[in-house]
């Protein structure tokens, strides 16, 4: 009554037990504790939490989430820009999670309550369709990592109507991994890279990074066995001092990636230094439309005045929020005094509780990281 064949292949508990046994042996052979591995993807966190994988991992192995939620790292000033545009009467289209994301003083949902027109879309193409259906200006407030940025790039290249423009909050993950790898207190010994992003970028992208930081990178898929197999590979590489990039998702990812998608991405966007919420300025971390596409760039097309929105005094609640430290893997949601109390999915304080890709929202949904190993 339960599962299909495709599912069984990557959801076989017996194979999972073999892999966790291998993890126990490998961590033991490294003979130091704890060993910290970081993944940088909300979908990985969802799978880890949903399947309760942490309860099966050896206690000396920490698998933490880094800056892997594009909604969460969208900066306050980027939200402020969208809210200012919306309050100026410009129609905004954006992804669902972005609507509730708090800005300095308001979210798009607040602007909507004040009468602004904000439409939720599921794809960049849908935003273009909305623009095409009327003559008035429509700004697509675009967020996401390189995976979704490729989709935005495709719409820019597809001759959208003249009333369409893009307010880009797109981010590029590899520079953020650089930033985390440089944090001395993070002590990350290996990275799991997101399989869907690597479909586009290729795993070869991480080879230079791994060498420079003496930190192996393994590209992983999203089924429980994909993740466990990638963790095994990472620990083997750490044990063998193999500081390179490996592919544990060969059914989808190649070394070169999708060349055509990369070409569109870099034809439309350039990587510029920019702020990531809670983390700070990431060199080359933001994707901005190139000069050539100025006519489609909402920042160049509209005068966006955010001065009425920025708050100089932080609220007491947001001062106590630990999202910034959570997003670089320094602390866990359960370390935050607000988690599950003042900060809940229906009334989020920090960005990590807003998005379904956010660590706090995921932990809240799946009951966090209980120590359940010993339960009969």
């Amino acid at each position: 009554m339960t599962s299909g064949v495709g599912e069984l292949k990557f959801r076989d508990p017996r194979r999972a037990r073999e892999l966790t046994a291998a993890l126990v042996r490998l961590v033991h052979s490294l003979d130091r504790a704890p060993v910290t591995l970081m993944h940088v993807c909300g979908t990985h966190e969802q799978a880890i939490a949903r399947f309760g994988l942490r309860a099966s991992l050896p206690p000396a192995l920490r698998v933490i989430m880094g800056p892997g939620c594009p909604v969460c790292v969208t900066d306050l000033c980027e939200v402020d820009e969208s809210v200012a545009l919306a309050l100026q009467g410009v129609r905004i289209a954006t992804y669902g999670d972005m609507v509730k994301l708090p800005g300095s003083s308001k979210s798009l949902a607040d602007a909507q309550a004040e009468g602004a027109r904000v439409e939720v879309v599921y794809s960049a193409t849908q935003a273009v369709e909305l623009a095409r259906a009327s003559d008035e200006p429509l700004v697509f407030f675009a967020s996401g990592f390189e995976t979704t940025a490729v989709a935005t790039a495709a719409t820019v290249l597809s001759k959208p109507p003249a009333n369409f423009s893009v307010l880009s909050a797109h981010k590029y993950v590899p520079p953020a991994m650089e930033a985390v790898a440089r944090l001395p207190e993070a002590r990350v010994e290996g990275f799991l890279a997101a399989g869907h992003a690597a479909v586009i970028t290729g795993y070869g992208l991480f080879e230079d990074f791994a060498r420079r930081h003496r930190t192996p990178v393994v590209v992983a898929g999203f089924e429980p066995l994909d993740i466990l197999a990638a963790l095994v590979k990472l620990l083997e590489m750490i044990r063998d001092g193999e500081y390179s990039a490996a592919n544990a998702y060969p059914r989808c990812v190649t070394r070169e990636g999708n060349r055509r998608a990369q070409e569109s991405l870099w034809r439309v966007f350039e990587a510029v230094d920019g702020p990531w919420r809670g983390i700070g300025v990431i060199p080359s971390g933001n994707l901005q439309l190139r000069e050539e596409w100025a006519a489609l760039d909402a920042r160049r097309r509209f005068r966006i005045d955010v001065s009425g929105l920025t708050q100089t005094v932080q609220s007491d609640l947001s001062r106590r929020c630990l999202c910034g430290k959570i997003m670089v893997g320094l602390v866990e949601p359960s370390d935050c005094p607000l988690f599950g109390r003042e900060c809940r999915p229906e009334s989020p304080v920090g960005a990590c509780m807003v998005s379904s890709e956010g660590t706090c929202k995921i932990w809240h949904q799946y009951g966090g990281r209980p120590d359940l190993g010993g339960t009969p």
Partner: protein
Amino acid sequence: MIGDKIAQKHGAGGPAMRALIESVFVTGLGPAGAGLAAMDDGAAIAVGDRFLVLTTDSYVIKPLFFPGGDIGRLAISGTVNDLAMMGATEPLGLTCAVVIEAGFAIADLERIRDSMRATCAEAGACIVTGDTKVMGKGELDGIVINTSGVGFAKRVVPDSGLRPGDRIIVTGSLGDHGFAVMAARHKLELEGALASDVAPLNGLVRTALAAGGESVSAMKDPTRGGLSSALREMAAKGEVGIVLHEASLPVRPEVRAASELLGIDPLHVANEGKAVIGVRAEAADRVLQALQAHSLGRDAAIIGTCVAERPGSVILDTGFGRRLLAEPEGELLPRIC
């Protein structure tokens, strides 16, 4: 948690609703007894050596007619099931009060009445008194039906009776009602036939009690809030932990598909024709076999075990690891039962 205004979440069957009932009604209406303070499916009033079980429920659902049922079938089944979950499997009588919006089609009302009559016949119940009110157009949305029911129980089966070692049985597939209503409401074109499981369960429960006797330790119907809310409440009241085995949970393929598509967990979604039954370990197989022999219990399964550790928690063993089963927050789907 309750705030100063009623919100949709206060009717969702989860923590917000419990907080509202506790803070406004239980403390304000007392006295404590087998009724309100226990916050069970109904009240049990001692009469001689038996208990008179009394329950009431109001039904609002959109759409009124959905695959597998309608508001009439729901209004009879819900109240018959609340009685049955307390151990009163032979309803003495039901009441039926309807509040109707002006403009409501008589033909629809007759269709609802026919459905109530058929469901009563199925349950061996009858409506013995009622009330009808009409409100102005726009003053309510279509129709609200309230039914109450009374019945005798020789032994009250509370939802608080779980003990470590008890097995948890669910009488069939999970999430059918919630996903059928959701698909009907949003006109989702989903593969496979989603249909509500709404049905009177008193016959099925009688079968379980006949097979298990005193070994049946707790019962609850996993309506709003789904299996996760029902188990959380049973674990908290019984002061036990519950370990669930995900692979043993009966979920139809079409419900699983809809759940992956919509990102909604079938364990968080309402059922209207299922019971969760706690049974002492030695009687579990016997009760399971009796349930499986009944037409409404063919897919019944033992899904978990009660433990002394982590009282009040429900732990889901996924086969890959373990996690706590969270309760749904707020309203996944307003006005579902």
